[in-house]
């Protein structure tokens, strides 16, 4: 069967199945199990309303449990076994990992990514939000800075491969180095250590628009009285921005920062397409993919390490949301 038909049938079955499930289960609940008539009418209605939320929630809880909760345990359990999955080796995979140079490079680079990318994207986004807010063509500028959000990491990597290329007829950077400054072309993806920053810039390029859009909304929400008061007190534009505006939107800045941090820890595409993890650019997600399909034990061990790094952010997120609920 052609996958296209398979796809259409899946949409029909999926959507129809969902609607059918919700409709039928409600009907059964109201008419058959707890009918709203007879001797126990009030008790039946109350019971039906106690069960109904779980009918609504069931499909979502089911897929979440299967695909996101179970794997936490499943991955951890698998990481305690060797490559074939037959022998229990305890923390053996972790011990080998921590002993390997590549893993240490990956952890180090990952920490760099987790600091530089959120910082860069948030800072440039904040500046862009502030600057574009007052321009007549600000909305067009915003739209263009926001655009890379729509581009895949693979697409973005290719776009920047053209910029970084060694060939001076392809690579814009080398063309500028040679054409304007008369220097020697360099392969920026092979400069030890600094090549990481060229890769990080691609993700900053993608994420700045996100930061800008949210921070721009936050900046607009600042009460004008505070700014007017600062102007009357003789503050200059820089003081207004850094001492009046930024402190008032600190909460939003933190949210943007953590959202990007979480994203950084998942992105393997850029390293995979640009350098394949060579030249000392390995990060944990791409390092995991070198074991995927080859050594499930080690692959899951790396995944668990990523999870451990993410956990503090997760706890913080949950605490924030609990605070809002109250």
């Amino acid at each position, binding site marked *: 069967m052609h*996958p296209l038909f398979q796809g259409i049938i*899946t*949409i029909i079955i999926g959507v129809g199945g969902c*609607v059918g499930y*919700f409709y039928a289960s*409600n009907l059964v609940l109201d008419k058959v199990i707890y009918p709203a008539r007879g001797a126990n009418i009030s008790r039946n209605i109350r019971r039906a309303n106690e069960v*109904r*939320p*779980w009918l*609504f*929630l069931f499909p*979502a*809880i089911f*897929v*979440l449990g*299967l*695909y*996101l909760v179970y*794997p*936490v345990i499943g991955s951890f359990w*698998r990481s305690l076994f060797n490559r074939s999955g037959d022998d229990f080796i305890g923390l053996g995979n972790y011990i080998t990992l921590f002993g390997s140079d590549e893993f240490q490079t990956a952890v180090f680079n990952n920490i760099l990514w987790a600091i530089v990318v959120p910082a860069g994207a948030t800072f440039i986004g904040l500046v862009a939000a502030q*600057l574009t*807010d007052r*321009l007549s063509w600000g909305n067009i500028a915003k739209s*263009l*800075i926001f655009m890379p*959000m729509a*581009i*895949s*990491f*693979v*697409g973005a990597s*290719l*776009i920047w491969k*053209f910029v970084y290329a060694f060939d001076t*007829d*392809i690579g*814009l950077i080398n*063309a500028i180095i040679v054409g304007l400054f008369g220097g020697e072309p360099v392969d920026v993806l092979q400069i030890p250590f600094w090549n990481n920053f060229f890769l990080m810039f691609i993700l900053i*390029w993608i994420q700045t628009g996100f930061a800008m*859009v*949210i921070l721009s909304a936050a900046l607009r929400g600042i009460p004008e009285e505070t*700014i007017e008061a600062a102007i009357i007190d003789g503050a200059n534009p820089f003081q207004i921005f850094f001492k009046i505006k930024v402190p008032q939107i600190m909460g939003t800045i933190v949210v*943007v920062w953590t*959202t990007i941090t979480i994203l950084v820890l*998942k992105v393997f*595409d850029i390293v*995979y*397409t640009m350098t394949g993890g060579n030249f000392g650019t390995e990060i944990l997600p791409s390092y995991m993919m070198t074991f995927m399909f080859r050594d*499930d034990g080690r*692959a*899951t061990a*790396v*995944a*668990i390490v990523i*999870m451990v790094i*993410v956990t503090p952010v*997760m706890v913080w*997120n949950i605490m924030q949301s*609990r605070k809002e609920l109250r």
Partner: protein
Amino acid sequence: MDNIAGQKSSLSIVTHLSVLLLVLIWLVPTVGLFVSSFRDRDQISASGWWEAPFPVELTARGRTGAQGTPEGDMFVVTGNIFDDEEASSFFGADPGDVVAFGTRGSNPTEFPVGETVDLGDGETLTVNGDGSYRWVTPEDPGDRGQRVYFAAESPPKFTLDNYENVLTADNMDRAFINTMIVTIPATIIPILVAAFAAYALAWMEFPGRGLLIALIVGLLVVPLQLALVPMLNFHNAIGVGQSFVGIWFAHTAFGMPLAVYLLRNYMVGLPRDIIECAKVDGATDFQVFTKIVLPLSFPALAAFSIFQFLWTWNDLLVAKVFLPTNDTAKVMTVKIADDLLGSRGGDWGILATAAFVSIAVPLVVFFAMQRYLVRGLLAGSVK
């Protein structure tokens, strides 16, 4: 805030310039890709895309004719170098002016055009700007003409050849269809499931609701990487294996936390009066949901579907793991990252075109639906 006294300062020109610079940095690389995808393959390797509107100097080689007319004790061969098949194969229908020529491959631009050059042994050669040449030799050339290297200005040339190549020879058309097959069900199915759950979390009272919301917030952060190995094994165990069905399930689940979170945040903000009035009038929760909440939540539903669409269309990781590796099931991102970058790593025209084919649809969706996307982002992060 424009009318506040003292806001307009001398900084405004600096502001314009710095925003312009930022926009240029953000835009230029994509423009480069776009321009490159329309350029002729020879021109791409001869000049940068920023020089695309200008003529390109291409070096080529050919051979003169061998029909010598005796003239005194010399033989004279005349003709046009562009009549030579080999030489004209370097150019299209419209070759430009010859700017220099030579007789050795190591130095194809040794002599300026129009100059009569002594080749030794009494031989001389002249090549003019229009490609006409005159070769004088003391011996009958027999059946072999003189080898001529030359550089000609080729006018800027834009073609759709790259697109034709990518879409036919490289199976990119198949990958494009595969991407759609993955994306469309993976965008539509989670919306319904998430909408019901979000309604329950927003408007129904039941024990454990707060805990569930906290769990969803926590799951927003769980790295996908954890799910790869256990779920692939699970798919293999239940007979789904690496297939489209498997990736639909995976994408549905991976998009679920954000979907529930976004939709719940939006639904909570709906006016309580409407919902309570409907309930007083005897509407069941099911009716309230389908007749009131769902239509009112349209902006949030649109926002999430854009997110999910962009995410599934652009995804590489899930497709690499949950789809089979044969060519009939590859999506575009995998195709580009694994096939084209490996086998055609040096073919910049093909790479640019493939990348552009893969980002064109998301860009259209992005610019058409930007309003909803922004609203969705704000609903998700700012209270």
